[in-house]
Structure formats: structure tokens, C-alpha cells
């Protein structure tokens, strides 16, 4: 007993309690539901068995059925486009803004603060606003583009199969920009100034400094931003029902929305779970990237 108390005060016991409490909490509230979904993807589910764990075993039947859906490959393609375009947009613009606001000019930090507002905007509200901005006939986005002479005819952002997915991407970049910029600003601020000064004395230009100092120093930040960004993008849900409902003809349906649609619109809970388990693979990949990126961390 006293050994335990001792370890609590000085040794590994204290650490275990701190980590253990959080882990237990997460395992109960996120781990069990995960297991439930994985289990459900191998079972036959109906309204009578929704509440129990023991259900007829279905093997890989649900997986086969999901892949056999006519929209499967379309959804896969959309998911990849949505994830890469959203993340690229959020990251590149976020990085550019972070660097821009790291410059020394009056009001820099105040104006940067304004860019963080999308952080506090509930997705539902953002979806409603963008749905309104991107409307075809009376949307303000078209009106602006027309007055700038960029387009002649009305673009039906939400109803044209060529643009529907991009309208969600645009809204999602707007929504996720704050997060990217914030984390990247934090990473930038942690780079010692004298590194740049030394490089400048050596005659390195701005691009070389970015390539040889900024990027390598920010490896772990970038890893965190990208992996959290991937998870966030895959989980993005609120924008879809507000903007396109996955239409027209599934051209803007992505995996997360499809899983929801299977479960909650078509009431096929097993297929919904199956799709979400398939998304797993992508996030697994992201987590490995993140954890690997922490290897390069330096302690202050």
C-alpha cells in the first residue's frame, strides 16, 4: 500500500492515473461505440436488434453490398477530392496567412484574430450562410462574380454536377481556415528568430529560408495540422445537408455523408456502419503520419 502511495507521489503511478483517467473515459465513450460499429458492419441489423450486440452474423456481406452499390466509386472519388481539396486549400491558405501575419506591421495580431472567427461558428450556421451565398438565381456569390466580369451566365453552384462538390469545398475551406492558421501561427512563432537572421547574413533569399528553416522546423506542427485536418474533414457533416444534400445525383456525396444517409435516411444501419469502418483506413493512415511526425519534436 505504501509502495503504491509512494509511486503515486513520485513515480509512474501518478502518470498512470493521469493518463488512465482520460484513456478510460475515451475508451468508454469513443472506444465502445467504435467497437459497436465494427461489430455491426459484420452483422445483419434491423429495428428490433438495433439495441443489442448479438445479431445474426453476416460475414463480409455488408462490405460486398456497399462496394456493389452503383454510387460506390463515385463516392470514393468525391471523398478523395473533397479531402484533398479541402485540406490543400485550408493548409496552403492557412500557411500563407500565418506567414503573412507573422510579419511586423501595425494591427497584425488584431486582424489575425478576426480570421479566427470561423472557429467559433457552428457548422450549422456556416452551412446556412453559405447555402444562401451560393444560391444560383439570387446568390450574392454569382452577383459578385458577374460584376467582376468573371462569369457571364449564372452558375448553379449547388445544382450543377461540376460544381456541387466544390461549393462544399469552398465552404469547408472557409470553415477550417481558422484552425489551420492558428496552429501554423503557433508553430511559426516557436522558430527562433536568430536562425533567420543567420540565414539572411549568409545570403539566403526568402524562398530558401522558407525551404531550409521554416519547413523543417515546423515538421511536427505540420504533422499535427494535417492529421487533425484530415480527421476534421472526414467528419465534416453539417455543411452537406445545408448545401447540397449530396446531390445532384450523388455528385457531392462523400463517405461521411453517405454513411449518415445509409443509417438515417435509408435506415440501413449495417451498411452505414460498414462505410464508416471503411473510412477508418484513411484515418489510420493519418494517425500514423501524425505519430511519426512527433518523432522530430524538440523539447524546449
Amino acid at each position, binding site marked *: 500500500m505504501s509502495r503504491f502511495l509512494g509511486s503515486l507521489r513520485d513515480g509512474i503511478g501518478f502518470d498512470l492515473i493521469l493518463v488512465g483517467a482520460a484513456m478510460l473515459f475515451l475508451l468508454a465513450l469513443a472506444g465502445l461505440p467504435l467497437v459497436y460499429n465494427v461489430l455491426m458492419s459484420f452483422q445483419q441489423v434491423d429495428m428490433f436488434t438495433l439495441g443489442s450486440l448479438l445479431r445474426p452474423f453476416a460475414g463480409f456481406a455488408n462490405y460486398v453490398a456497399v462496394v456493389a452499390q452503383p454510387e460506390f466509386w463515385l463516392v470514393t472519388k468525391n471523398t478523395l477530392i473533397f479531402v484533398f481539396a479541402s485540406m490543400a486549400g485550408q493548409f496552403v491558405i492557412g500557411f500563407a496567412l500565418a506567414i503573412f501575419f507573422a510579419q511586423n506591421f501595425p494591427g497584425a495580431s488584431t486582424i489575425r484574430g478576426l480570421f479566427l472567427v470561423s472557429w467559433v461558428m457552428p457548422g450549422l*450556421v456556416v452551412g446556412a450562410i453559405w447555402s444562401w451565398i451560393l444560391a444560383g438565381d439570387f446568390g450574392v456569390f454569382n452577383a459578385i462574380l458577374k460584376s467582376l466580369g468573371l462569369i457571364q451566365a449564372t452558375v448553379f453552384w449547388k445544382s450543377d454536377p461540376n460544381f456541387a462538390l466544390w461549393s462544399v469545398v469552398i465552404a469547408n475551406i472557409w470553415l477550417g481556415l481558422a484552425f489551420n492558421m492558428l496552429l501554423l501561427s503557433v508553430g511559426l512563432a516557436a522558430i527562433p528568430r536568430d536562425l533567420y537572421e543567420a540565414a539572411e547574413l549568409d545570403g539566403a533569399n526568402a524562398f530558401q529560408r522558407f525551404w531550409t528553416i521554416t519547413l523543417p522546423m515546423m515538421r511536427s506542427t505540420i504533422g499535427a495540422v494535417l492529421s487533425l485536418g484530415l*480527421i476534421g474533414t472526414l467528419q465534416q457533416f453539417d455543411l452537406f445537408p445545408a448545401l447540397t444534400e449530396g446531390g445532384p445525383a450523388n455528385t457531392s456525396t462523400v463517405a461521411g455523408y453517405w454513411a449518415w444517409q445509409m443509417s438515417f435516411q435509408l435506415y440501413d444501419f449495417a451498411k452505414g456502419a460498414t462505410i464508416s469502418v471503411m473510412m477508418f483506413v484513411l484515418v489510420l493512415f493519418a494517425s500514423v503520419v501524425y505519430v511519426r511526425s512527433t518523432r522530430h519534436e524538440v523539447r*524546449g
Partner: protein
Amino acid sequence: MTRPYVPWLLLGLALALAAVYLFPLYWMYVTSLKSGSEIFANPPTFWPMAPDPSVYPAVWTRRTMGTFLWNSVVIASGVTAITVILGTGCAYVLARYRSAWIDFGLFLILMLQVLPASVMITPLFVGFNQMGLLNYPRTAVVLAAAAKSMPFFVVLVRATFMSVPRELEEAALVDGNSRVGAFFSIVLPLARNGILVCAILTFMSSFGEYIYSKSIIQDTALQPASVGLSGFLGPNSTDWNSIMAYSAIYVTPILAVFVLLQRRIVSGLTSGALK
């Protein structure tokens, strides 16, 4: 090298960028002040012909927004409390060591985040039902949403702990402090700013919690503002000025707090305030 007008040029550019970025917000406020037919005008008007702010008090009372917003505050506070209490310690330990176990822990935390809330809700509902937690719906939502915001908090706060010099903690241990003592008297105070900022960010993002609340909380008097808004966005509503007014009432207080605190938030995270 640097010419005196460059900072002002940058300021101008920054303001222009901010104007573009904040346009959706502007549009929310402007639309809320327009009349029903002006909303559908083509081309749209950039300033309402006859601004009508009376929609605000009307929406406030008709939608019982006071109750909704209070519930949002209650839920967000609960989520933040649990996340900070459980997440801080976890982040500290994950920052303190470097081993395969720590890698595994980080990996696990991210993996547990993988499923979207819309897929998690059914098993959570079933579990809460079995534990009888559905009778305390707001508590149930707080627990579920805290599990969702925890990974993000841990990753950010872990970064904060990384920048607390290890030597300070070791010096405290040498001086006869226990690990517990060193944690509370040295490490926590040094990481305070970062934790505070992450707590604020957690609060703000859980202020918009929607999916769990809408499924778990059946009693309207206990629902948060996001669920109240979705009741508006049903298939038969194009009451767009009211929707936008509701949205504006919903987000303006958090926006205001945010703009007031943003210097602290940004500096708390960027300059570290730790060094």
C-alpha cells in the same frame, strides 16, 4: 532595407483580406435585416433598403432563445470542465516521455476520434439508455461531446507542455518536491496560458454541439441553440431573415467574447508566454 511604407501596405492588404474573409458574416447580418421579398431579389442588394431590426426581438421571444442559449452555455461549460480536467493530465504525461508506449497512446487518442458523431450516436444512445443516463440528457450530451473534443485538446495542450523546460521540473524534484507537487506548483502554472486558451477554444467549439444534443435531448426546454436553429431549417422554412437573425443572435455573443479575448488567445498560443 525595409522602407517605411511597407508596413502600411501590409496593413492595407491585411484589411482587404479580412474583408473578403468576413464577408459571409457580413452577409448574415445584412440578410437578417432584409424584408422577405428583398431577400429573393436578383441581383441581391448589398445594403437592405429598409433595415428592419424588429426581427431580432421577435425571433428572440418566439424561439425562446434565452432558454436555448442558456442550455448551450451549460453544455459547453460541462464539456470544457471534463475536457480540461481529464485532458490536461493526459497531455502532460504524453509530453513528458518519449517511448513506444507514448506513441501508442497518441495513436489511440487519434483513432478513437475517427468516427463521425453521426455514426457514434446510435451506440451511445443505446449505452446511455442502459445506464439510465437518458434521464439526465444534458449530462449525457456533455459526456459524449467531451469525448469528441478531448483528442484535439490533448494534442494542443501537449504541444504547450512540450515547451515547458524540463529542467525546471527536474530542479523542483531535486529540491525535494514530489512529482505531484512539481506538477501542480511548477508545470501547471507555466503551461497555464496554453491550457486556458485551449479551454476557451474547446468551450467555443462545443457551444455549437449539434448531433448529440438533437438525438439525446428530447425536452425542448433542455435543448441547446443549435437544435433550436435546426428546427427552423426544416423542409418548410424559408424564413431566411429570421434564420439569419437567429444565427446572428447565436454567434454574436461568442464572436464578441472572442474578439475581446483574441489578443490573449493568439498570444497565449503563439508567443507561448512560456519562455
